[in-house]
């Protein structure tokens, strides 16, 4: 039988020219693990003989070299652009109008339905809260975050929760191996059996840090990642993402102690974190001030405490406007 499975035989199979009887021969041949090598060797040769198109390898290789040197982002920029265009044109005619009309009608009923179907856990501003779910999973919610858990059927047929904000999960491994899923919106989804991890889902992006166990991360457009302990996934709002193994995890876990961890962090970034954690809008009109960097570990239970710290660190004036806080320099900026 070994003599039957030749290179040409496999080529015919790849071309779709073989019969089901011949297919069975290949299937049996592949039961021998050693033949897998030859199979893929033939796939490769077949592709080389019948290329479907000529990709721009130079450009792609250049990007790859940059990544190897640690200067590039993972090449996830294109799909976002391409796919957004495609889906938009798909819905542009008629579909969107119809959807708008129907959703308006359903919106009112939907709002009430949510309260009944889901148990909504929230954490007040400036505080972290711990919860125990019906399946004994422990959740610590960061301030200004919500977790939606189905009231009915949770833990029996499915364990699925929705997160907006930031939370740490210690998921129990159930006897029946029922998966635990965290939906973070926009096509991002975490799936585990029983592990410990932190998830962050806000407008600025999505982040997942895995402490123990394994995580299957589903990304938009059908992509998926498997994470190992100690790895840190971060994606920005545009969908560009990367996975790193950080040596210093304090920045990621500091929030549990109502603490902020700054490491050469620009003030504009500090302002964004204040907005995310305390829901307070901070504006910094002076561009130089916005770029000033600070560092350190600071405990702050609310925005005022952090502002006190900031005014101690820098020469700034904090003014309360009608809808936001403004930060200005008190003196002229000195280097």
């Amino acid at each position: 039988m070994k003599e039957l499975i030749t290179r040409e035989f496999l080529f015919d199979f790849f071309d779709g020219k073989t019969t089901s009887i011949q297919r069975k021969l290949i299937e049996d041949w592949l039961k021998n693990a050693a033949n897998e090598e030859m199979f893929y060797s033939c796939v490769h040769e077949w592709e080389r003989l019948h290329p479907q198109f000529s990709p721009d390898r130079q450009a792609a290789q250049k990007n790859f070299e940059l990544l190897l040197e640690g200067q590039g982002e993972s090449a996830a920029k294109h799909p976002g652009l391409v796919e957004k265009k495609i889906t938009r044109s798909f819905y542009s005619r008629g579909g969107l109008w119809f959807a708008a009309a129907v959703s308006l009608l359903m919106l009112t009923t939907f709002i009430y339905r949510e309260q009944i179907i889901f148990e909504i856990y929230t954490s007040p501003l400036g505080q972290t809260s711990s919860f125990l779910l019906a399946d004994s999973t422990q959740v610590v919610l960061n301030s200004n975050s919500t977790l939606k858990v189905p009231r009915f059927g949770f833990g029996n047929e499915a364990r699925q929760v929705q997160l907006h904000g930031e939370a740490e999960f210690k998921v129990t491994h159930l006897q029946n191996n029922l998966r635990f899923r965290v939906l973070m919106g926009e096509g991002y989804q975490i799936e585990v059996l029983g592990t410990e991890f932190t998830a962050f889902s806000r407008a600025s992006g999505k982040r997942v840090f895995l402490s123990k166990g394994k995580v299957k991360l589903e990304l938009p457009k059908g992509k998926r990642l498997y994470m190992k302990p100690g790895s840190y996934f971060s994606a920005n709002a545009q969908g560009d993402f990367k996975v790193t193994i950080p040596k210093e995890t304090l920045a990621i876990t500091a929030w549990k102690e109502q603490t902020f961890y700054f490491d050469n962090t620009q003030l504009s970034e500090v302002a964004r974190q204040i907005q995310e954690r305390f829901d307070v809008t901070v504006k910094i009109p002076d561009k130089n001030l916005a770029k000033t960097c600070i560092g350190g570990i600071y405990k702050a239970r609310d925005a005022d405490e952090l502002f006190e710290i900031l005014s101690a660190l820098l020469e700034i004036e904090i003014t309360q406007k009608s809808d936001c806080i403004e930060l200005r320099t008190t003196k002229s900026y000195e280097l």
Partner: protein
Amino acid sequence: MNTERMTNRTESDFEEFRSKTDQGIPFSDDKRVIIADDERLLRETFAINPKEGCSLLFCRYYDSLCSHAIRFVHSKEIAEDIVSELFASFWQERSFDQVTSSYRAYLYKAVRHRAYNYLRWKVHLTEPLDSISLTTASKIINPDDELLYSELHIKVEWIIQQLPPQCRRAYLLKRVEGMKYEEIAKEMHISIKAVEALVSRALLRLRTDLKDNWFLGFLLVPMF
């Protein structure tokens, strides 16, 4: 097995041989080395300088991996992105340390997984078909998998061949070439609306035909 009669060796001499063939490793080990030998230089490079190894790997397999991917995803841009992302995570996760087969086999398997995931998303399949972790993929070999992936791209091609010529042409120009609707309309001398209708019809046909004939045996056990 009565080996004493055949030779003057004892049964214990054959023990080692028997267990090796049971594992599927062919009797003559040299044969196996010859097949993967064309990657010997790559393996040696990885041992010294993984960056260089990845670079060489990219150079050697990028083009044909892209060609293979586009058979599933039917888009030049998506195919290139899938392969680039594959190499990126190959480097970032140091997969080269864990590969037990040839790099070629690993990369092709990985590209097929990703292309399949994309196609599944594109065709809106609702069944939760999980796929196994890529690092374990090289250890657990389900013979059906390789064939099913191949048959999938054969099937996709067949579906497209069955389309009426105008439909097929519009679909290929839009999806594979990535042309805009206006450009296609101009080339085919039809209205933009007509182009949209043709492309939608092709996608719908793909969707229904793949769903109907979906490989029920394609349920791979997730390994956590």
